[in-house]
C-alpha cells in the first residue's frame, strides 16, 4: 500500500474511527473532543497532496480515489465547514450521554465520512458509495426530535434522497452497460440535482434546513448540497458533447427558474432558517444555469469550470457561516460581532462589490458567449442580484434576534460565536484567494468605476426600498400578513390543507399506504385460493397428458 493510499484512507476513515470511539463509554470524552479534528487530514491533503490516483480494485467492484481539480477545491471548503460545524456543535454543550445524542453523533460522523469520501472518489461506483452513505446518514442529523414537523421534514428528505439515488444508480447502470446517451445525462441531471434542489424537486430542502439544528443546516447547505454539483462535474461530461449540448438549454432555463422561484418563496417565509433554505435553492439555481452554460460545448466547459468551483467555494462557506450565525449566542465581545458578520455574509450572497458573489458574476460575464440561452443568463444575472437582495434583506430582518434554541434537541442549543466568525472570515477571504490564483485580472477590473457600478446598482435598487420598508415596519410593529408553508409544492401535493395553529404550521403526516392495505389483502387471499386450485387443476391435466403421451 502506497503512502497516498494510506493518507486517503485515513482521511475518509477517521470520522468512522471516532464514531467507534463514541460507542465505548471509557473513550467517549476523548472521541467527542476529536470530532472537530476529524476533517483535518482532508484539509491537509487539499493543500499539500500531490496529484495521485489510488486504485482500490478489491473494494466493491473496484474504486478509484484521488484529487482532481474540482476535488481539491471541494476538499478545502468541505473540510472547513465540517470543522466549524463540529466546533459549533460542541460549544453548544452537546455531550454523548443520552441515546438520542449518540444517534445524532453517529449519523453526523457517518455523514462526514461520506461527504469527505465522495470528494476523493473519482470513479462512479465509489462516488455513489460515499454519496449514499452521506445521504442516508444525513437523515439522522436532520431528524433530531419526535415532533411532527421534524418527521415530515425527515420523510420528505429521505424519500427524495432515495429517489434521487435510484435515478443516479439507473444512470450508472446504463453507463456500465456502455450506454451514455441522453437517458444517462437526464438521469444524472435529476438524480444528483435533487441534492441541491432542482425545481420542482427542491421541496425537501427548505423544510429540512429549517427544522434541523443550526450546525446540521450549515452542513446540509454548505457541504452536502454541493455533493450533487460535484457529481455533475465529474460524471456528466462522459455523456459526450452532443448529448450535453442538447441538455444545456434546458438546464439554463431550469436554473434561472429556480433562482427566481426560490427567491419568491423565500420572501414569504417567517423563519430565518427556512428563508436561508430557499436562498440556497435560488443560489443553486444560478449555479445550475452556470453549469448549463458549461454544458454547451467542450471549450465552454473548460472556461466555466473554475467559475463553478469558485461559486461552490463561495456559496458553501457563506451559507454554512450564515446558518451557524443563526444559532449563535450574541453575548460577550465576540457575540456582538455576529450580526455585523451576518450583514457582510448577506452582502456576499447578493454579489455586492468585492465579495465572492461579485467575483463569480463578474467572471461569468467575461465568458465569451454568442446568442442562445447562455446569453440570456448573462442578461438576467443582474436581475438575480436584485431578487437576492430582497431576499437577504428579509433575512437580516428576521435574523435581528437569534432563533429560539431547542435545548432538548441534540445540538439544538446556541453555540459560541467563534466558529461562526472564523468560518465567516474564511468565506469572505476564500474567493479572493481563488480569484488571485486563477484569474488575477479580475482584481484589477473590479476597482475601475464601471465595474463597481455594475455590481452595485442591483443591490442598491432593491436594498434601499427594503431598508425603508424595514424602518417603517419596525416603527409600526407591522408583520407580514401571510406566508407560504416551507416545502411549498410538497405540502400542497400531500393533499392536506395546512391549518395554522397560532402562527405555527401544523404538519401533515404523509399519507402512507392508506386505502391500499385492504385491496392488497383481498388480492392475497384470492391468490392463495387460486394458487392451490390452479395447481390441482394442472395436475389433472398433466396426468392425462403424460398418460396420453406415454401410451
Amino acid at each position, binding site marked *: 500500500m502506497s503512502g497516498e493510499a494510506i493518507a486517503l484512507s485515513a482521511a475518509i476513515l477517521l470520522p468512522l474511527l471516532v464514531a467507534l470511539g463514541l460507542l465505548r463509554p471509557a473513550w467517549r470524552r476523548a472521541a467527542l473532543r476529536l470530532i472537530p479534528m476529524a476533517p483535518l487530514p482532508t484539509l491537509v491533503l487539499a493543500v499539500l497532496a500531490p496529484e495521485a490516483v489510488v486504485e482500490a480494485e478489491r473494494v466493491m467492484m473496484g474504486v478509484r480515489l484521488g484529487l482532481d481539480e474540482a476535488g481539491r477545491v471541494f476538499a478545502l471548503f468541505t473540510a472547513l465547514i465540517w470543522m466549524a460545524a463540529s466546533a459549533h456543535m460542541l460549544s453548544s454543550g452537546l455531550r454523548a450521554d443520552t441515546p438520542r445524542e449518540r*444517534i445524532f453523533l453517529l449519523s453526523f460522523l457517518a455523514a462526514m465520512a461520506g461527504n469527505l469520501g465522495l470528494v476523493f472518489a473519482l470513479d462512479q461506483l465509489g462516488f455513489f458509495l460515499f454519496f449514499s452513505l452521506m445521504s442516508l446518514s444525513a437523515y439522522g442529523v436532520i431528524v433530531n426530535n419526535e415532533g411532527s414537523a421534524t418527521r415530515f421534514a425527515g420523510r420528505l428528505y429521505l424519500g427524495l434522497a432515495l429517489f434521487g439515488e435510484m435515478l443516479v444508480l439507473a444512470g450508472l447502470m446504463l453507463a456500465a*452497460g456502455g450506454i451514455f446517451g441522453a437517458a444517462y445525462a437526464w438521469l444524472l441531471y435529476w438524480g444528483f440535482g435533487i441534492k441541491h434542489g432542482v425545481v420542482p424537486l427542491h421541496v425537501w430542502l427548505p423544510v429540512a434546513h429549517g427544522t434541523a439544528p443550526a450546525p446540521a443546516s450549515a452542513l446540509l447547505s454548505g457541504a452536502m448540497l454541493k455533493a450533487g454539483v460535484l457529481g455533475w462535474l465529474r460524471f456528466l461530461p462522459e455523456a459526450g458533447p452532443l448529448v450535453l449540448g442538447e441538455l444545456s438549454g434546458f438546464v439554463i432555463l431550469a436554473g434561472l427558474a429556480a433562482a427566481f422561484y426560490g427567491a419568491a418563496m423565500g420572501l414569504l417565509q417567517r423563519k430565518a432558517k427556512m428563508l436561508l433554505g430557499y436562498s440556497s435553492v435560488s443560489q443553486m439555481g444560478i449555479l445550475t444555469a452556470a453549469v448549463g452554460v458549461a454544458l454547451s460545448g467542450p471549450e465552454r466547459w473548460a472556461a466555466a469550470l473554475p467559475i463553478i468551483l469558485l461559486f461552490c467555494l463561495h456559496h458553501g462557506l457563506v451559507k454554512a457561516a450564515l446558518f451557524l450565525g443563526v444559532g449563535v449566542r450574541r453575548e460577550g465581545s465576540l457575540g456582538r460581532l455576529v450580526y455585523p458578520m451576518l450583514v457582510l455574509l448577506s452582502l456576499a450572497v447578493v454579489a455586492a462589490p468585492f465579495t465572492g458573489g461579485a467575483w463569480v458574476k463578474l467572471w461569468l460575464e467575461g465568458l465569451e458567449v454568442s446568442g442562445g440561452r447562455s446569453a440570456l443568463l448573462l442578461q438576467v444575472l443582474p436581475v438575480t442580484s436584485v431578487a437576492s437582495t430582497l431576499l437577504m434583506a428579509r433575512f437580516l430582518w428576521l435574523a435581528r434576534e437569534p432563533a429560539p434554541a431547542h435545548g432538548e434537541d441534540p445540538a439544538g442549543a446556541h453555540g459560541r460565536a467563534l466558529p461562526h466568525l472564523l468560518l465567516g472570515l474564511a468565506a469572505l477571504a476564500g474567493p479572493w484567494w481563488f480569484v488571485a490564483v486563477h484569474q488575477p485580472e479580475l482584481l484589477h477590473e473590479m476597482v475601475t468605476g464601471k465595474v463597481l457600478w455594475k455590481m452595485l446598482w442591483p443591490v442598491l435598487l432593491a436594498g434601499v426600498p427594503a431598508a425603508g420598508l424595514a424602518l417603517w415596519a419596525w416603527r409600526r410593529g407591522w408583520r407580514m400578513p401571510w406566508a407560504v408553508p416551507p416545502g411549498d409544492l410538497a405540502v400542497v401535493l400531500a393533499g392536506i390543507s395546512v391549518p395554522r395553529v397560532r402562527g405555527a404550521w401544523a404538519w401533515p403526516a404523509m399519507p402512507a399506504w392508506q386505502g391500499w*392495505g385492504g385491496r392488497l389483502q383481498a388480492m392475497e387471499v384470492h391468490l392463495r385460493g387460486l394458487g392451490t386450485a390452479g395447481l390441482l387443476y394442472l395436475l389433472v391435466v398433466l396426468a392425462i397428458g403424460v398418460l396420453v403421451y406415454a401410451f
Partner: protein
Amino acid sequence: MTPGAVPPLAIVLISLIAGLVIFFLAEHQVRLRSSLNLGAAVLKVMLVFAVLWGVYQGERYRLGFELAPGFEFVLRVDALALLFVTLSAVLWLLTTIYAIAYLEGSPHRSRFFGFFSICVSATSGIALAGNLLTLFVFYELLTLAAYPLVVHRGTPEALRAGVSYLRYTLAGGVVLLAAIVWLYSLTGPIAFVEEGGALDHLGPEHDGTLIVIFALFVIGFGVKAALVPLHGWLPQAMVAPAPVSALLHAVAVVKAGAFGLVRVIYDVYGSARVHDLGVGFPLALLAAVTIIYGSLQALRQDDLKRRLAYSTVSQLSYIILGISLFGPIATMGGLVHLVHQGIMKITLFFCAGNLAETYGIHKVSEMRGIGRRMPWTMAAFTLAAFGMIALPPLAGFVSKWYLGVGAVLAGQFWVVVVLLVSSLLNAAYFLPIVYRAWFLRPESPGPAPERHSRRGWETDAGLLLPPLVTAALTLLVGLFAGTEFSPLHWVEFIAQQEYPP
C-alpha cells in the same frame, strides 16, 4: 468406490447420520445432542472447505451408481454445487448454534434437531445432485423433512400452516416429477452439463414440447421459490420457530426451488437454448411481478416475521430474474444473490427471533426504541436491512448492480426500473423499522426481558453471536467483492463456464 466419490457422499451423510442418531437420544441428553449437532456442523464445514481447496487444485469428485435401470444416482462436485453447499454448510453451523440457544428448555428437541439435520442433508444432496432424478429425490426428502419443523410448535395455527405447506409443495413436486419424466421420455436419462446444457442433440422439431416442459419446471420449482401466485405457503410457514424460518428462508426450502431452476436453465436446457426458445422473457416477467408484489404485501404487514417472509418472496425472484436474462453479467447477479440473499435474510430472522425471545416483541409496532435495549441485535438487523435495500457497499448492492448492468447489456431496460422501484419499496418497509428502533423513545416501562445473559449481554450469547457473524459477512462480501475469496469471484468463474468468451 473411487477415492473421488468419498467427499460428496460424506458431505451428504454427515448431517443425515447426525440427524438419525439424534432421533434416538432422550430429551434430557442436552450435552450429547448439542455436541453431536455442533460436531457434525463443524465437520461438514471443514469438509466443504477441503473440497473447495481440492477443486481449486484441480481435483474432481464424483459418485455414481445405477439405482434402477435408467436411473443413475449421481453426486458430484461442480462450481455451482460448491457455491450452494458452502452457503448451506456455513449457515447451518450458525443456525445450529442459534437453535441450541433458542430452544433451550423447550420440549421435543430431539425430534426438532433430528429433522433439522435431515433438512440440511437433503439440501446438500440437492446441491450435489448430478442429474434431475437425483435432485428430485433430495428435493422431496427436503419437502417432507421440513414439515415437522414448520409444525414444531403444534399450535392450531402451525398445523394449518403445515397443511398449506404440504399442499403446495407436494403438488409442486408432482408437477416437477411430470416434467422430469416427460423430458426423459424425449432424451433418455441425461446428466447436468455445465457448458451449454444437455439438450444439444434435440432438434428444433421438439421446441414446442420443450417449452411446455420448461413451464412445468417453472411451476414445479416455482412453488418452493415462491413465485407469485405459488407463494401462498411461505408467509404462513413463518409461524415456525425462528431458527427454522431462518433456515427455510435463507438456505433450505426456498433456495432449493431457486437452485433447481438454475440447474434447469444452465445445465439442462443451457442458456442459449433458453434464449432461443424465448422462455426467458416470460420468466423474467413473472419474476418482476413477484418482486413488486412481494414488496407491496410486505409494506402492510405489522407482524415482523410476516413482513420478512414477504420480503423473501420478493428477494428470491432477483435470483430468478438474473438467470432468466441472457448474458454473463446478469447470471452473476442472479447467482451471487443466491448467497447474498441467504446471508442477509438469515440475519434478519435471527434478529426477529432475538426480539421475540428476549422481550416478546413480534410486531413492528412494538419496536419503539428497541435499539436502546438491544443495540447489537438491532445493529445487525439494520445492516442486513440496508443490504436488502441495496445500499452500497453491502451484499445486496453487489447483486443488484450486476442484475441491473446485466439487464442493460441484455437490452431489457424495464428490468432496471423494476429493480430500482423494488429498492424503494424495500426502503419503505425496512426503514420505518430502523426508524422506530433507533429514533423513538422506548415506552416506559418497557417489557421486562424474558431471558438474560449470564454476562450482562443483551441476550443469550448463542442468540447474539450468529446474527453478528452474518451481519459482518453482509458487509464483508459486499465491501470486498473484488477479492479472490468473495462469492462474486466464484460466480464469475461459473458464469465464464456458461458463457465462454
